[in-house]
């Protein structure tokens, strides 16, 4: 177990403290031969600044004591000494971890020195401050910065000239055709109207069109029918449900906290609805980002923008004994940085947590500057009331808390003697004699071991029921009176208003006790009670962010320099503020500055990242395939000029996502057929990178379920609100100790759209899991598509699917009673937006004739065509 050294902020003093003692026995060897090797290759990580793996190689005693992996040196026996073995490559991990390997001469020197007894001299070690500075790495400046910016993604996007291709009007088509010509590829023809209609519906709202919607579209023969269709779909409230879900993948959204206890987040859905509304209202993307990062700091902050900060806290949390495990806060910050990095910047910023980024020019300092920008964060419940009312609500509750507390103390005092007596009785009944003896002795007579037992025993509880049963009539009466008082106060509590789970600035060190925090396992981790402060900032004077430090090798217990806020330098143009002071002084303005930078036209990444994501969802493959990584190990863009043209067009159109849908969907590229074979094309571009046909895509888990319910007619299209809990077999729920699932029987009440299904971290909804639900704990890029037998089993045997097959059959019987031929036609129109061919109709009728209509409707729900967007 790790011994917690010091609270954050005190570490540096420890680090720069006293010089080590040293032994002087054989100075010549050490000083001339060994010391230079140690300084260069060992002490950076096992010296004064840090002792990785708890190993300190500065002194002989420390080296003999060793670290987590045992002793480093066995004097006189080099072959058995770990230090020698790792530098000689005889044992992993080979050392030094960084820098050049030792020369043969140096390895031999170490060997001889150990065989001679491994003696140190007395001397000064490298100045600790220098060591720290060296470990923190260099700034990216001057020529190195300029060189780093030669990489395309770090340059501000500019629009190249649209290729001159006369027979195509649409700028996107000209770029795409230009690339095709380059590869000698021939574009597929336009898909038929029904295919396009279905494509637009599934793509924009995630529901197949009804036969009536199909007829209406086909009836509109005036020019502009396609554009009008797109506008209609963009105006649908179901658009936000579909496209908001894409963002919720980025936001690693879930309704529970994860880990062992997987606690319910009863108000998390408000953030989910915020996202859906933001898409429906075409909230400009730059504003959308600002609200999610700093919704509490905006000049026009509102309930809505505060709810948006749920983005920051949507990741997993342990929520048990957090105060004894202060290092976890760094994991939570890392989760935020990884999500912002991959989600908004398309960069793996989190890779710079322990060292400079291995591939991209992201310094470890960049990471800790960005961490400092977020470092003030606290997570709190926020009443959705007018400010004055909210204040009144809080005050009233505090008053009641105080009064109840006093009464509860009195209750405890009355119960105390009973509890003591019963504890002794329990002790006698349930514990061995030596334990009883230890408790019975006066403290002064106990052995140290008995004292430990006694302390353990005295923390044993007694069931309330037993206490109640033993009370004297007087005590019982008094307690009842007290309890009535407490209840009366409880009744006087104001009704709990709607709450949001938000992030704002505060001081995490004063967090109210959470689960398990009542036991103090790590006193050093706690803030001393006499140091004034509060969790939510309460003034007076302006708020100050608690200090945060560069962490050497990412180790929370090895703090380096104090960090000030900042951004990823290579992507920072001009001199944007890193703090935007707030007039009310209640928050730091650091997150607001970060948000401004993340949503800035002067940042080369965010616009590219989001237009690439939009492109991916429309076309089934991003211009950059790695949606979350535009860095050097990401895939290079297939159409770099198009990507930049789109990014600029996006910003020029006010960061409007709906404008991008219109732009992309009105291109011929979007309207190509997917059913198109062309052997030469296939040979030249087997993956269809250069868009010579439309890419068919398997529907996502949620859309498969939504489509099934739409086709059956059973779907409830209510928008928004608390999550629903569709039926999960009891055995599956019973196999887990914690976590919320208010199981409801399969039926209309839970046939809501899948975006409203409760997301429980410890248990993915089985239907979704089967169809490649991404891990909900980390920001997700493109979803994986697998084709496995369990998907077939689900669609064949799952009672929900079969029930909707039945509903689908009932619907056909209702809409076209008794006429099998018409029923088959209608089933095709409903499920796959077309009429069957004669062959298909004959096969279908044969099945119905040999069995029943539901045989056929069930088959429809299993068709490849039904499961794909084409």
């Amino acid at each position, binding site marked *: 177990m790790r011994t917690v050294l010091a609270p954050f902020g005190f570490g540096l003093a420890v680090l720069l403290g006293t010089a080590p003692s040293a032994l002087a026995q054989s100075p010549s060897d050490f000083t001339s031969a060994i010391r230079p090797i140690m300084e260069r290759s060992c002490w950076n990580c096992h010296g004064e600044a840090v002792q990785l793996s708890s190993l300190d190689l500065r002194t002989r005693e420390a080296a003999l004591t060793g670290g987590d992996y045992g002793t480093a040196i066995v004097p006189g026996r080099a072959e058995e000494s770990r230090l020698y073995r790792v530098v000689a490559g005889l044992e992993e991990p080979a050392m030094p971890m960084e820098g050049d390997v030792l020369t043969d001469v140096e390895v031999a020197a170490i060997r001889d020195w150990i065989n001679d007894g491994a003696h140190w001299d007395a001397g000064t070690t490298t100045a600790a401050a220098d060591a720290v500075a060296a470990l923190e790495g260099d700034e990216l400046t001057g020529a190195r910065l300029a060189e780093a910016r030669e990489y395309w993604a770090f340059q501000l996007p500019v629009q190249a000239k649209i290729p001159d291709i006369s027979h195509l009007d649409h700028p996107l088509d000209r770029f795409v055709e230009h690339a095709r010509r380059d590869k000698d590829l021939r574009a597929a023809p336009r898909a038929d109207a029904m295919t396009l209609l279905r494509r637009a519906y599934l793509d924009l709202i995630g529901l197949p069109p009804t036969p009536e919607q199909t007829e209406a579209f086909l009836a509109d023969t005036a020019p502009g029918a396609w554009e009008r269709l797109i506008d209609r779909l963009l105006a649908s409230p179901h658009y936000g449900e579909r496209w908001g879900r894409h963002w919720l993948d980025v936001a690693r959204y879930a309704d529970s906290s994860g*880990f062992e206890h997987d606690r319910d987040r009863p108000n998390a859905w408000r953030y989910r609805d915020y996202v859906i509304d933001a898409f429906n209202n075409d909230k400009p993307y730059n504003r959308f980002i600002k609200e999610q990062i700093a919704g509490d700091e905006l000049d026009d902050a509102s309930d809505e923008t505060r709810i948006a900060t749920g983005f920051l806290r949507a990741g997993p949390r342990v929520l048990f004994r957090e105060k004894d495990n202060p290092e976890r806060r760094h994991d939570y910050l890392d989760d935020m940085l990884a999500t912002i990095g991959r989600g908004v910047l398309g960069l793996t910023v989190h890779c710079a947590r322990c060292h400079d980024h291995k591939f991209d020019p992201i310094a470890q300092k960049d990471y800790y500057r960005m961490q400092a920008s977020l470092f003030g964060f606290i997570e709190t419940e926020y009443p959705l009331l007018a400010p004055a009312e909210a204040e009144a609500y809080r005050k009233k509750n505090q008053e009641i808390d105080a009064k109840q507390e006093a009464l509860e103390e009195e209750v405890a005092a009355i119960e105390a003697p009973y509890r003591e007596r019963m504890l002794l009785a329990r002790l006698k009944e349930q514990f061995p004699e030596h334990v009883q003896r230890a408790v019975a002795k006066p403290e002064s007579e106990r052995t140290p071991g008995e004292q430990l037992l006694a302390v353990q025993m005295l923390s044993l509880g007694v069931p309330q029921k037993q206490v109640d049963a033993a009370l004297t009539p007087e005590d019982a009466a008094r307690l009842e009176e007290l309890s009535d008082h407490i209840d009366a106060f409880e009744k006087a509590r104001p009704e709990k208003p709607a709450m949001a789970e938000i992030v704002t600035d505060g001081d995490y060190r004063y967090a109210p006790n959470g689960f398990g925090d009542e*036991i103090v396992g*790590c006193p050093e981790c706690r803030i001393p009670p006499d140091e004034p402060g509060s969790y939510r900032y309460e003034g007076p004077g302006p708020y100050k962010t608690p200090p945060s430090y560069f962490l050497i090798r990412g180790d929370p217990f090895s703090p380096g320099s104090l960090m000030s806020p900042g951004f990823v330098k290579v992507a920072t143009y001009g001199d944007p503020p890193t703090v935007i002071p707030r007039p009310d002084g209640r928050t730091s303005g650091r997150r607001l500055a970060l948000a401004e930078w993340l949503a800035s036209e002067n940042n080369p990444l965010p616009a590219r990242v989001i237009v690439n994501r939009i492109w991916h969802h429309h076309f089934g493959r991003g211009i950059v395939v790695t949606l979350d990584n535009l860095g050097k190990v990401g895939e290079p863009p297939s159409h770099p000029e198009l990507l930049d043209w789109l990014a600029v067009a996006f910003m020029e159109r006010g960061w409007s996502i709906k404008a991008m849908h219109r732009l992309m969907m009105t291109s011929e590229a979007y309207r190509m057929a997917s059913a198109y074979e062309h052997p030469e094309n296939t040979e030249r571009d087997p993956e269809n990178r250069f868009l010579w046909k439309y890419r068919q895509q398997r529907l996502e888990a949620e859309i498969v379920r939504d489509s099934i319910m739409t086709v059956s007619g059973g779907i409830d299209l209510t928008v928004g609100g608390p999550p629903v809990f569709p039926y999960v077999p009891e055995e599956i729920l019973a196999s887990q100790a914690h976590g919320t699932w208010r199981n409801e029987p399969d039926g209309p009440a839970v046939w809501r759209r899948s975006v409203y299904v409760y997301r429980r971290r410890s248990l993915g909804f089985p239907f979704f899991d089967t169809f490649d639900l991404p891990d909900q704990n980390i920001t997700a890029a493109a979803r994986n598509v697998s084709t496995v*037998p369990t998907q077939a089993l689900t669609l064949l045997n799952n009672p929900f699917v079969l029930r909707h097959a039945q509903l689908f059959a009932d619907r056909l019987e209702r809409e076209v009673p008794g006429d099998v031929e018409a029923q088959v036609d209608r089933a095709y129109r409903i499920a796959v937006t077309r009429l069957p061919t004669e062959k298909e109709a004959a096969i279908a009728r044969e099945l119905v004739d040999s069995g029943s209509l539901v045989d056929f409707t069930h088959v429809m729900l299993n068709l490849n065509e039904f499961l794909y967007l084409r």
Partner: protein
Amino acid sequence: MKKTFWSRRSFLFESGGGIAGLALAHMLDRDGLLAAESCQAAVEGNPFAPKPTHFSPRATAVISLFMSGGVSHIDTFDPKPALQKYAGEPLDDKVEGNIVVRQGFPGPLMPSPFTFQKYGQSGIEVSELFPHLATHVDEIAFLRSVFGRSNDHVQATYEMQTGQLRMGFPSVGAWVTYGLGSESSSLPAFIVMNDYRGGPLGGPNDWSAGFIPASYQGTLLRASGEPIVDLEPPEGMTPERQRARLDTLAKLNELDMEKYPGSSELAARISSYELAYRMQGCAPEAIDVSSESKETKKIYGLDKEVTEPFGRQCLMARRLVERGVRFVQLFHGGMGNQNTDTWDAHSNLVENHRQHAAESDLPIAGLLTDLRARGLLDSTLILWHGEFGRMPISQRGVGRDHNPGTMTVLMAGAGIKGGQVIGSSDEFGYKAEEQPISAHDFHATILHLLGMDHTKLTYRFNGRDMRLTDVAGTLIPQIIA
């Protein structure tokens, strides 16, 4: 075993109808008996088809026995006579650093209430809790110095299962399946069985695929009801009707394929229905132990109430491995009352460990015996461990708290030299002392035995080639020797 939807005969007969366009003839045995081999015939388009190893493997399958709650090494496989000497004394003045316990306050040192005895040619000591497994000591390597980083059940379980303390990382079974595919085309490649009392803490994340494709996650085989979710059609669906539906589906999908002749994805989806159909027939057969001989059932303890549940699962594990399943993960101890239904002996070490050892000792010994008898032990890697060890100090004189400082892990099969003790804990059993072994070292060694270099089994995610062993992992020399 509850009813299986497909009797052997009807499965055979129905298969004869065939999914249009897909030859199933190779599955059929003309004598009308469906042999297990039929379930093993290869299927084109199987997403889990076997993949080449990096080098010649020592074993081709894994059975991992996870003792949920944390087994006390001191009371089972790592005797500490010194605790007699120090009984009742504090530990903190004898070791470095703070003593951190999970619950309440640290107690004094407590010797094991169980007696130890030497077994086998190797003379390795085992406590009275495992009299049957003890007769196998010469087949088992005992790793007495495996340490973890967390004293929370869930994080510690994640570390043993995924190498990381956090959620969202692929489990060992998922990595192995991703690296090797599966020998079976009729059964899931990676199968998980929970204790009859419920799942382990941490839930499905203990066998998740994390960031690698979801299809590599473990498939949960349930103790009651249908063994795999949605394996069997609901009441009222006859085999004939399902067959008719499948035939029609295949015909319509074939017509659709004419428009997309080059799409391997659509072809794979058509195949997946054949695989699913076969799984319906083959999975119940694979786990149906009723055909096993009386003697076989007896060596797993199926004839005794206390050993029946875990014995059945061990026997099922053998059947699955025999049929080509790559990785079988069993959990012993599960949800319910944490202190009594798992190995989590906070409040009554004697009763708790007696009960759990009694439930699992004979079945595990039986598994080793049976695998050996069938010639499968050398090609199967057996792992046995919990999420952490337990403290040498007591909780209120009767229990032991969590101790990630050291635990004992058992490895057998895969040609591993048995009868050896690897590493050691300190004289109290408080921390690993000689040759400390991390989860990464353990995982690297597992992959090595399966023919994979842990530094080369990677998945590109998050801008990095991710590994089961992160950036660490040292092979345990005595195991791979």
